[in-house]
């Protein structure tokens, strides 16, 4: 079964709750496994939090477009998340990788979000297109 969800959200952290319930509803409708749904929530949450918190140089309202698609006929089933924003250019694939084996004292506070996204999604693709950041994240569903 194919499916698509498009959401336009403002650059305000309170929007995360709306994204979360829409994604939960999408997951339920398409019978996505709980573990997959958790990863999708995490990926979107981290990416949107980053854009909203650090993506803009002004205090104006901006729109971020989120698309969740389950392409028809893809075998095995694959889910795709796309996030488009008009913030400053930012390629998550260039973000520094944290040292996750360092002891407590040497752990920097922060910098884990993008790393988690890269680990829970199978692949990430970034492009800057017409003044926008376009990030596509894919995950293959097992079974």
């Amino acid at each position, binding site marked *: 079964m194919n499916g698509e969800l498009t959401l336009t959200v403002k650059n305000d*952290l*309170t929007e*995360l*709750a709306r994204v*979360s319930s829409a994604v939960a509803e999408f997951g339920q409708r398409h019978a996505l496994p*709980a*573990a997959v749904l*958790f990863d999708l*929530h*995490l990926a979107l*949450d*981290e990416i949107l*939090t980053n854009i909203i*918190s650090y993506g803009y140089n002004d205090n104006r309202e901006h729109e971020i477009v989120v698309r969740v698609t389950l392409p028809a006929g893809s075998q095995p089933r694959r889910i795709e998340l796309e996030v488009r924003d008009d913030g400053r250019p930012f390629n998550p694939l260039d973000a520094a990788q944290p*040292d*996750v*084996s*360092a*002891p*407590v*004292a040497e*752990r920097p*506070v*922060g910098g*884990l*979000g993008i*790393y*988690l996204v890269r*680990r*829970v999604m199978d692949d990430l693709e970034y492009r800057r297109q017409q003044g926008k950041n376009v990030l596509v994240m894919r995950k293959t569903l097992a079974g």
Partner: protein
Amino acid sequence: MELTESKKGGAVVLGLSGRVDATNAGVLEQRILALIDAGEKRLVIDCAQLQYISSAGLRVLLIAAKRLSDSGKLALAALNHQIRDVFDIAGFSSIFQICRTQDDAVAAVQ
């Protein structure tokens, strides 16, 4: 996120429920730091009712671990499977004491 607080065997037990993300991690941070500033040295974070945590929540736990590393003890209890996976990916499973139950965690911080 809902936050409950109780005292058990000389430890403060913070019960988290729901979701911890960038919208509410600040509330958790303030509460934990207030407890540490007030001299609490044994802290248990019970995650039995916690459904979700993002890096914003992990950040707060790391701050708490850093603050308590010399002078106190911190243990986490009852992480669900998905949250445990996030801990594993973030390398947090090796820096936190993670217990199966709240009682085990209270015993671990004695």
